[in-house]
């Protein structure tokens, strides 16, 4: 009995039980957007009387609110960003800045150099190479897909808001390597920017804060939710057909192994529907016995956090090789080989989901078969969102 029940609950068709929830949520989001819009209008009205010093054109018109749209009903509500409400003008400015090479010390790199749209905003390298060339970054470039929902940014959660995070790669000597104040000075002298800042933030005098805000606004629009998995999850049962490798892989992905049921345990850390760490969670996934990179432990100093990293999004994972915080694995099959057969069980504070699997109760390893690994890889390919990587709204401006 128990196995059948488990299978029933483990298979995603139960998604279809949800509609009433999300209908009401959509209404709520709508109301929220309205409220934000009203607030925005209200907040901007007093500005009409204020003439910014040095702004010869006088007061700027209020920018147009930009409403984020969830790809489908399973996505969570958008977090509020009252200190940086999205506007059409702010997002557009952010896009220009994202692809602006003058934000690097030697003018050779923009954010988009390492966060390439065609690779779901990664770079295909094990370790990112910064504007100066030379020593590579110690970590692998992370995708920017769906960062709007993330509360801990980068592998160790050093960033807690996109505004705060954006300064790090701009200034880091092994990344773009230019003090933000210098970037502001350069932007002020590039003809297109002062008017764009004026439209977005009411003043053509550029500030560090407004550079970071615009970049964060653009990043919040990078939403990926139109993969084949999404069509399936949103109710199109023909998008992933029962009996296919993809379907079997999805079931394995979402299953916890218990006697009689095989499971790959993936969902514990790569939690749908964003397929990332739950808020504030970091994991030692058993790569090493000792840690060249302390990961989360480098932030908290706690022994229990040493060698623990954020579980990155698996959306578009077929496009984001190589894998792991240090890019050590070239293929998804190598990643599955690790979780199945090579987890360092003695590694200090190994995450509990990897510490014992009833798939093989003699060794405690996950011990996936070659077929199961193939099925999981097939499922992971259904997370590729081909519209996301071609969306002209996310591409470099002409």
């Amino acid at each position, binding site marked *: 009995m*128990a196995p059948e*029940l*488990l299978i029933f*609950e*483990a*298979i*995603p068709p*139960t*998604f279809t*039980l*949800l509609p*009433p*929830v999300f209908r*009401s*949520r959509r209404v*709520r989001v709508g109301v929220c957007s309205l409220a934000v819009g009203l607030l925005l209008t209200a907040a901007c009205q007093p500005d009409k009387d204020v003439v910014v010093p040095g702004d010869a054109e006088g007061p700027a018109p209020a920018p147009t609110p930009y409403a984020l749209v969830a790809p489908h009903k*399973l996505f*969570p*509500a958008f977090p509020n960003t009252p200190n940086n409400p999205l506007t059409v003008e702010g997002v557009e400015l952010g896009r220009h800045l994202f692809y602006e090479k003058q934000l690097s010390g030697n003018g050779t790199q923009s954010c988009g150099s390492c966060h390439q749209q065609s690779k779901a905003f990664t770079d295909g390298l094990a370790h990112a190479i910064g504007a100066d060339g030379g020593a590579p970054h110690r970590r692998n470039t992370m995708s920017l897909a769906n960062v709007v*929902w993330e*509360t801990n940014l980068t592998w160790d959660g050093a960033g807690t808001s996109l505004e705060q995070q954006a300064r790090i790669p701009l200034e880091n000597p092994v990344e773009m390597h230019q003090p933000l104040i210098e970037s502001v000075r350069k932007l002020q002298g590039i003809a297109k920017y002062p008017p764009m800042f004026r439209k977005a933030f009411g003043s053509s005098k550029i500030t560090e804060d407004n550079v970071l805000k615009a970049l964060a606004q653009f990043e919040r629009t990078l939403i990926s939710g139109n993969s084949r998995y999404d069509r399936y999850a949103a109710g199109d049962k023909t998008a992933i057909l029962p009996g296919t490798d993809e379907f079997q892989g999805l079931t394995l992905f*979402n*299953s*916890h192994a*218990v006697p009689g*049921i095989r499971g790959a345990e993936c*969902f514990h850390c790569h*939690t*749908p*529907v*964003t397929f990332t760490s*739950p*808020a*504030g*969670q970091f994991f030692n996934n058993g790569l090493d016995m000792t840690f060249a990179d302390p990961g989360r432990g480098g932030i908290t100093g706690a022994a*229990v956090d040493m060698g623990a990293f954020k579980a990155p999004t698996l959306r578009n994972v077929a496009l984001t090789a190589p894998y792991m915080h240090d890019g050590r694995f070239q293929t998804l099959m190598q990643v599955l080989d690790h979780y199945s057969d090579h987890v360092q*069980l*003695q590694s*200090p*504070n*190994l995450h*509990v*989901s990897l*510490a*014992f699997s009833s798939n093989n*109760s*003699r*060794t*405690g*390893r996950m011990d996936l078969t070659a077929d199961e690994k193939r099925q999981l890889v097939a499922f992971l390919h259904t997370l590729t969102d081909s519209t996301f990587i071609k969306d002209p709204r996310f591409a470099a401006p002409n």
Partner: protein
Amino acid sequence: MKFPKLTTLLFSLATASLLFASCDDDEDQPATGSVDLEFENVVGNQALTLNASTYYTTEAGDQFKVSKFNYFISNVKLTKSNGTTWAEPESYHLVKQAEENTHSFTLKDVPTGDYTQLTFTIGVDSTRNVSGAQTGALAQNNDMYWSWSSGYIFLKMEGSSPQAANPGNLPNGGPLQFHIGGFRKPNNTVQTVSPSLPASTALKVRGTVTPQVHLKADLNKMFAGPNTVRFATLAGTGHSSDPNSVKISQNYAAGMFRIDHIHAD
């Protein structure tokens, strides 16, 4: 004999007029007050420390360590001796041992009076599992949600035990991973409890002071009570609900939560 009776009458009249006078003045006698609920997680008579260097011991004698302990408290209700019940609106709270600021919360706008019973659900009611806003304590990314079966994990306990299966020879023993949830028959794990108030104590809600109800949650009661759990035979529950999850929920409903004391002022 008559004299005292008259005194009593006069006294009553005086009291009554005082009462009326004070009723006219809303500032002196507010209609509502607040109550703080504090949850202190313990193991038997020891404080709970995550990732401690030494082992705790279950009532049946198994050793274990704890790396995570989270649970939902929802649908909090207060009842007066006359049966009048007040229910907290939008009553969903998530207690996480690792996050100090989640260990207490305040019930607001509680009608004043003397309450004799506290009632709450351990977990999330079935209605809210399938409808309503998933924000605040109920946000999906709080590490307490099974997205594929559209339901909340009501209680999570993770750790390790030398008595649990440990073929990988893990240094702290085999893993323990109890994720309790599920609201559908036959494996419904929604549990509602009314831990009794300390003897001859009422929870006096006044506008002027905020009483603090100090509860102790004994993690050991997950594994003792109606269904004794030994880690050699049960070191975890299947994700989504299963019969073992129901047994553990019966255990923690029977004895985990106890009102230790109430600070009246």
